[in-house]
C-alpha cells in the first residue's frame, strides 16, 4: 500500500519558493500524479486558504492556484465534522485551550487538516505529513508540532518537492 502525503495550505504556499522556477512544471506534474493515485491528500478548506492567500499575479502562485483548482474536483477529501470536533478536543487536551486557530479572522484550514490526520490514524493508514512548520506562535498551532505530538511521520517540504519531481524524471 503506497504512503499517503498530507499537505496543508502553508506548505503548498511555501513549496514554489523552494524550487527553481524552471522545475515548477515537474513539481506540479509530480503532485498531479500523486493526487491521481490518491497519494496526496488535502481537504477542501486547504484549497480555499490557498486561493485566499495566494497571489495570482506571482507566477508561482498562479501555477499553484491553477493546479489546485484543477485537482480539487477530483479529490474526495471532505473531513467529517466528527473528526473536526476530535481535532479541537485533541487541541484542548494538549495545551491549545482555545483550539487550533483561535485568531482566525474567518475560516482557517488547520482544524480540517488535523481532523484528516486523526481520521488516517484511526484507519491505521500509512501517511506522512509534509510540513516545515514547527514554530509555536500565538493564534495558530504549528502543524509540525502537532504531528510530532501525535507521533506521525513528517517530511520536509523540500524533500517532498524533490520526490515529486523525481516522479517526472525520465528514470522514474
Amino acid at each position, binding site marked *: 500500500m503506497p504512503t499517503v502525503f498530507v499537505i496543508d495550505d502553508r506548505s503548498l504556499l511555501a513549496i514554489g519558493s523552494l524550487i527553481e522556477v524552471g522545475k515548477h512544471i515537474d513539481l506540479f506534474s509530480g503532485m498531479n500524479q500523486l493526487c491521481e493515485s490518491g497519494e496526496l491528500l488535502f481537504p477542501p478548506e486547504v484549497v480555499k486558504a490557498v486561493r485566499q492567500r495566494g497571489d495570482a499575479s506571482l507566477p508561482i502562485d498562479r501555477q499553484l492556484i491553477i493546479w489546485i483548482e484543477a485537482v480539487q474536483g477530483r479529490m474526495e477529501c471532505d473531513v467529517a465534522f466528527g473528526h473536526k470536533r476530535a481535532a479541537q478536543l485533541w487541541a484542548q487536551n494538549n495545551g491549545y*485551550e482555545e*483550539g487550533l486557530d*483561535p*485568531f482566525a479572522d474567518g*475560516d482557517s484550514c488547520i482544524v480540517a487538516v488535523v481532523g484528516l490526520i486523526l481520521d488516517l490514524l484511526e484507519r491505521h493508514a500509512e501517511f506522512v505529513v509534509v510540513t516545515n512548520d514547527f514554530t509555536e506562535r*500565538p*493564534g*495558530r498551532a504549528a502543524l509540525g508540532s502537532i504531528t510530532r505530538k501525535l507521533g506521525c511521520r513528517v517530511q520536509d517540504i523540500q524533500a517532498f518537492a524533490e520526490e515529486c519531481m523525481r516522479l517526472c524524471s525520465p528514470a522514474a
Partner: protein
Amino acid sequence: MCHTLCMAARRIPITGSVLAWAMAEASVTAREVADHLNVPEATVRAWQDERAMPNKGQLDKLARFLARPASFFFLARPPESKFPTALLRRASGSDKDWRAPSRRDRAAIRSAQNAQEVSRWVAGQTKRSAIDLPSAALTDAPDDFAGRLRSWLGWRTSEQIELRDDEVARALRAHIEEHGILTVNFTLADERYRGFCLPDPVSPLIAINTRDDVRARSLSYVHELAHLCLGVESLCTDEADSRTERWCERVAGCFLLPDAELRRFVADVLGVGTVREVDDVRRLADHFNISNRAAAVRLSQVGLAGSRLYSIVNAQTAAKSRKSERNGVVQTRARRRLQRYGRTYVTQLLSAAESGALSDLDVLEYLNVSRRELAEVRAIAFDKADL
C-alpha cells in the same frame, strides 16, 4: 440539485456549551442571535442545549455574528475567558448611564488583545525591550505631566498649530508609534466609547474609535496614553466621571492646549476675560486644531468659560461629527489594514519575518491579507508618508 439541497440541510454538530459561552462573551442574547439568523429563539436555545443543530449556512452566519472562526464551535468545552474584566465595568466612581460594551465592541477589544499577544511574543523572539513610558500618578499636576509627555513624545504645540486639523491626530499617532506603542483603529458600535487601552511593559496598546470626530481623536490618543502611563486598562467614554478619567482628560487637554498658551490666546487674541461666545470657542479650537468640545472643556478647567458654555458647545458638536479625509489616496485593503493595525504592529511583524522569527505566511494570517496585499503593506509600512 438534490446534492445542493442535501448540503443545505446537513446539520453540523456544534458544542452547545461553547455556543452559550461565545454568546455570553459577546454579550448577546438568544433573541438577538435568533433575529440575526432569522430563526425562532427556541431554535437557538435548542442549539445551546444540543437538542438541535444548525446547518452550514446558519453556522457560518453564527460564526460571523459572534466574530469567531466556525471551527471554534467544535471545541469540546468553553475555553477560559481572557477578556479584561476591568474593561467590562466602570473604572470607579459613578455608574451613571453605563452600558457594557456591545458585541462589536467586544470583538474589537479581542482583536486588539490578539494583536498585543502577537506583539509581545515577537518581542520575546527578537529581544525587544520594555518601553520606558513616563510613569504617572493621580497626584501629579496634569499640566506638569502633560509637559513631560510632550517632551517624551517630542511634540511641539507650534507644530500642532501649523498642521491641518485632520492631520493632527495622524501626526500624534505617528509620534506615539515611534515610541513603540501599538495604536489600532476600530469602528466601535457605540460612539460614546472614544477608545481603550491595554497596558503591557513591551507592547502597550491604544485603540481609538474611528466613529469619533477627526479632531477629537487627538484628545483620545493622549487620554489613552495617560492611562498607559498610570498603568491601568481603560475603556473610555466621553464622560469623565471618575477621578482617573478626569485626570487623564485633564492631561489630554493640557497636552493639546497648555495653560499658558490658552490664557495668552484668550487675553491677546480673543481679548476677553471670560469666553461666552461659541464663535470664540471655535476660534480657539481652530487655532490649536482641537475639537470645539475639547476647547470648551479646557476653558472650563482653567476658569475662563462662561456659564453653560460647555453644554451649548457639546450640543452643537454632537450634531456634526467629521470623519478623517484621505486626500484622494486610493484606500486599498492593504492601506486599510495598515490604518487599522498601525505602523508599530505591522512593522514589528515585517521585521520579525525578515529576522526569521516569523514567516511571511504568519504575517499573511495575522494581517488577514493575500500575498499581493502583503507586498503593498510592505511597500508603504516603512514609508513615513501619510496613509
